[in-house]
């Protein structure tokens, strides 16, 4: 199994940390992982993206132009990365703020209204974990228990009390992901 994923959105949406949690979860189940962010001026508020690879084998290039899956969280990223999804691959996006929706017919397209769900749950900070839950419903490449173990390992002890909230957010994502266009 090899999953090559890009997560792209605004800085501050938790793009990089979502990727980190996926990578940590991969480690928890003895897989190889790589996490390669765009870095530079983007770090200071512009767009942010990260390429995450989870694989049973040694990972070659950590930098990719074609992806098995793309998680898209703003319009610029959709414009930039829609074409990079491998035919038959997955594009998951939050429609919040999107004016031009994905158009490809040769990929699977899903929506998660994470921004509004996060607002309903009363915490914008868990936005990315709702998205992550939606992704894991489509691509169950890591077990939820390993996500929780990864969180415990990667988060400082003082944040461990937030883990149940994050788990709720993941479940919220799992429940609310919507298929927009699915290949037969």
């Amino acid at each position, binding site marked *: 199994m090899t999953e090559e994923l890009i997560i792209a959105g605004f800085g501050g949406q938790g793009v990089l940390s979502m990727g980190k949690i996926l990578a940590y979860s991969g480690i928890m189940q003895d897989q190889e*992982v790589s*996490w390669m962010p765009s870095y*530079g001026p983007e770090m200071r508020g512009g767009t942010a993206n990260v390429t995450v690879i989870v694989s049973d084998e040694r*990972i070659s290039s950590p930098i990719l132009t074609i992806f098995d899956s793309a998680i898209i969280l703003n319009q610029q990223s959709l414009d930039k990365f829609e074409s990079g999804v491998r035919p038959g691959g997955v594009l998951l996006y939050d429609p919040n703020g999107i004016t031009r929706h994905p158009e490809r017919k040769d990929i699977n397209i899903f929506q998660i209204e994470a921004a509004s769900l996060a607002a309903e749950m009363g915490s914008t900070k868990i936005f990315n974990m709702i998205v992550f839950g939606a992704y894991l419903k489509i691509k169950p490449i890591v077990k939820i228990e390993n996500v929780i173990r990864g969180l415990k390992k990667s988060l400082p002890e003082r944040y461990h009390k937030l883990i149940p909230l994050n788990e709720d957010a993941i479940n919220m994502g799992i429940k609310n992901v919507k298929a927009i266009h699915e290949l037969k």
Partner: protein
Amino acid sequence: MSELKLMKGNEALAEAAIRAGADAYFGYPITPQSEVIEYLMAEKPFDRTGMVVLQAESEIAAINMVYGAAGAGKKVMTSSSSPGISLKQEGISYIAGAELPCVYANVVRGGPGLGTIQPSQADYFQSTKGGGHGDYRQIVLAPASVQEMADFVKDGFELAFKYRIPVLILSDGVIGQMMEKVDLFDPIPRMTDAEIKEKYPWATTGKKSGTARRIITSLDLDSHKMEEHNIKLQAKYKTIAQHETRYELIDCDDAEYIFVAYGSSARIAQKAVKLARAKGIKAGLFRLITLFPFPSKQIHDMCGKGAKGFLAVEMSAGQMVEDVLLAVKGCSKVEHFGRYGGIVHTPEEVLEAMEQKIIGG
């Protein structure tokens, strides 16, 4: 006990310095390697092992602090990125001339000048052909993973002290910024002052009365003595070339078309090998681990094993390719492919270059 962690290359480098028993790190922030000193400051290595971390006023000061501490027999490290490494060249030349051990890392970004903060491999000439003034060499280790960012710090210190030579870990923005799983080696205790005095009699640790004083210098106004010193250095470099050349062959057993690459380009080329094999092209990867010493003989030997052509893949306008040409000595075709100025080539374009320049060319 070794420990499995998800870390950035820069963080792994910093953590490895603590674990390798380094006595000091002197640095100055620059993108894309600032995480090294940030990590070290946050980790409080002084509390963990007694290791000193100091943010210097410049890269120049930092490398000269390294010179001073190394001359006094301590295990010491610095790191920077391309423009900062240019500033350090004077100090590195002095360290090489005075035959001091140290490890330093360059997380390369695109140049020339202030250039860009994106990844590059355009400092190959600077790293392998001198950089500073004078006839000197340094051992250059090229990590291609976060794991190697950690491991090469430990290896680097061993080599540095074995040969009393600066060891450069030549990384780049990709390896520095990406996170991977890293199995951290067990911590090595820092040497005690008594051990240092016993093991490194050349170090300036205070002269016992009635004994000869130790002088750390790269100066000799007598040219004959300076020539002798140079001859000794060259002999040392030859010994290093004989014993310390490192490389990795990937899918090369039956390979006809060989990518030659190091660092993140090697990772990308490895993917290109996969893509090539899927198309029925017998491709392989010769990954350089030491850039100095350069595995010339081992590359040349590929000709006798059925290699029909070499593509040097590097994020530069063509630097390492010159050493590949010298190694191959005409026994096979050699071409270069690289993107530069901060652009990272894709596996697809690397394969396309092999098809067009070597197979079809």
